[in-house]
């Protein structure tokens, strides 16, 4: 049923100001100058309609002023009829929140996402033949076959809604609404609606984000809030996963910190499991007090110098969406450090870079070559760093191929280390 609404309700609250002209008239009325006069008969002869005409004119002027104020305020309030033109086609965009929080239970039993999709399906089934609808997901899920743009095909729309599955990701409402607005701007019919099905998680919807474009004027926006079930027990979630703040070297152990949050009203006991891309896994028991965080340190070993991932999961906990986190990392293989000159010229530096000559501790392997072999080594290996003594550089009086190669190496981002020559001997282990 069409209903009158206003876009700027504050001006409706100001409508009593329309009575101001009447108040002013009454107030100033008593302040006219009064004067005794011998007779009024000549005034009536001058204008027989004088008294009545003046009063009528006064009241008309007053009425006009009141109407002017009322119409101005109503215009500023921007009234609009919602539901007008129901006989014509309606264009509807359905924004479905498929973020991780929607996989949680609703008070009625089904998941929140299930309820959202059911409500959206009901809207689709009530569409008229000329109506059009489109679907936008809060989390872009390419596995869901959404109809292109706006369509009148209720079957396709219902099928798409049936395909929607919960994701583990957090939604970006601003992006989703931008896509919805883009669809609405292309909608042909004058009556447009935007329906949002969500549990309005603060972590997603509470972030301030500006839409790239304004919602078109006259669009009816309806938010269907799906309530979450209230739990009295613990509520564990993986809040963050952070690797060590240093290089991860293949073959070397490294640590990962996992921060677990308990937002429930009771202590949470669960198992924290890990599983990596190499098939290795681990499990440990954790206890997180109510309304507190706990940081768990995991020690892992990266075997190969290639991209890998790690999954951390809290087992046996209600909402799986926030119970797991992934970490992608790329361990580094051993790298070469090219020393130009003999080892004795560099003192303890080679030992410092690689306590064992095979780079087991640092991932760095020192090799020593004469200046004449620099170019060949650069072609053969890609050293992480080139170390040259000052004396060696100073000895290069005029440019030769080695100097040119070093310049090229540095210009391409390579690290060149200049150190003073030293006679200190390197102890052996």
């Amino acid at each position: 049923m069409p209903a009158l609404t206003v876009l700027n309700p504050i001006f409706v609250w100001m409508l009593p100001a329309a009575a101001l002209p009447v108040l002013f008239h009454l107030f100033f009325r008593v302040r006219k100058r009064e004067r005794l006069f011998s007779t009024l008969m000549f005034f009536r002869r001058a204008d027989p309609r004088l008294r009545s005409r003046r009063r009528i004119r006064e009241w008309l002027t007053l009425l006009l002023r009141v109407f002017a104020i009322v119409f101005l305020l109503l215009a500023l309030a921007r009234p609009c009829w919602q539901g007008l033109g129901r006989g014509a086609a309606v264009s509807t965009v359905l924004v479905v929140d498929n973020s991780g929080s929607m996989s949680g239970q609703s008070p009625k039993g089904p998941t929140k996402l299930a309820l959202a999709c059911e409500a959206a399906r009901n809207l689709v089934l009530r569409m008229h033949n000329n109506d059009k609808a489109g679907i936008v997901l809060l989390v872009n899920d390419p596995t869901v076959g959404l109809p292109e743009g706006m369509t009148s095909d209720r079957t396709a729309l219902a099928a798409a809604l049936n395909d929607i599955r919960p994701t583990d990701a957090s939604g970006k409402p601003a992006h989703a609404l931008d896509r919805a607005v883009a669809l609405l701007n292309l909608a042909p019919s004058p009556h447009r609606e935007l329906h949002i099905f969500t549990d309005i998680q603060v972590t997603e919807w509470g972030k301030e984000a500006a839409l790239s474009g304004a919602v078109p004027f006259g669009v009816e926006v309806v938010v269907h809030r799906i309530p979450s079930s209230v739990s009295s027990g613990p509520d564990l979630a993986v809040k963050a996963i952070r690797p060590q703040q240093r290089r991860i070297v293949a073959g070397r152990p490294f640590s990962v910190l996992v921060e677990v949050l308990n937002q429930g009203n009771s202590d949470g006991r669960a198992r924290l499991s890990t599983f990596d891309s190499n098939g290795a896994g681990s499990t440990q028991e954790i206890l997180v007090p109510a309304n507190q965080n706990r940081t768990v340190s995991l020690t892992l070993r990266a075997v190969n110098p290639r991209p890998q991932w790690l999954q951390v999961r809290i087992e046996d906990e209600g909402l799986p969406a926030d119970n797991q986190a992934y970490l992608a990392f790329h361990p580094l293989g051993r790298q070469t450090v090219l020393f130009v000159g003999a080892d004795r010229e560099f003192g303890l530096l080679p030992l410092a870079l690689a306590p064992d000559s095979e780079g087991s501790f640092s991932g760095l392997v020192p090799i020593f070559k004469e200046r004449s072999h620099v170019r060949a080594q650069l072609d053969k290996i890609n050293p992480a760093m080139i170390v040259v003594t000052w004396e060696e550089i100073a000895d290069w009086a005029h440019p030769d191929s080695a100097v040119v190669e070093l310049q090229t190496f540095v210009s391409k981002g390579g690290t060149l280390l200049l150190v003073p020559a030293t006679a200190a001997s390197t102890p052996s282990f």
Partner: protein
Amino acid sequence: MSPNDSYKYLPPALAESLRNVNLFVRRPVQGAKQGLHRSTQFGSSVEFAEYRNYVPGDPPSRIDWPVYARTDRYVIRRFQDETNLRAYLLLDISGSLAFRDLGAMSKMDYAAFLAAGLMFILVNQGDAVSLLTFDRKVRHPFPLVETFEGLRPLLLHLEQLRPQGRGDIEAAIHEAAVMMAPRSLVILISDLLQESEKIARGLRHLFHDGHNLMVMHVSDSGERRLSFDGIVELRDMETGERMVIEADELRPAYTAAVERHIAEIRAACAECLADYRLIDTRSSVEEELHNLQSTARLIY
């Protein structure tokens, strides 16, 4: 009482200046004794009236011999008799007379001065005078007086007058007409703020009764031409009615209405052979009273 006694509305200086002022009327009057005015009766005065046939017993000295020489007929000249005047002053004391704007005094005060001066002139020239005050009816009719002593209560009464109430000139005239002796002089002193047709009816009544009429229209110039401007709420001094007007917008039409009213009154007076005088309260009372004499002589 002597003519030198001081009254508010007849100070000695005014009385002294009016001693030689005489007031005449145009129509014959019916008086009680010999006076300055033409009588309706025939007598042996010097003014020829008509001829009649000689009858035995008439004095031969009254035979008009030139007529006999021409016609061989014996005829007697008849002459107008002269008698004194009975004058009635109808003084308006309705609420509108309290108005004062541009004048030196209120209309009531001015009218009272006029009334006092007229009564003095009339008594001074040997005529009888009476005062009848009215608003919508005659309030206080005094008997005719012929002496200065007799004038005293009338002059004292003038000093007690307080203009109030609604006025009805026509009704008062009709009421006063039965109180007055026929063929007298009636002087109406009023601001004439009533429909001209009604005033005319009253004047016609008096005219048909054979009276000589004099209408003294007392007016403040501020009520003929509005002296104020802007939006004003007016209150009628007699009825209490209120009206909000914008003076600047209304002034031309108002002035025209007043002038139309004066013209209608003037025409009504002319129809009744009444002597009409529009008197501005800014003018001197003494001058206006002196003007009565000069105008009267021009008419006759």
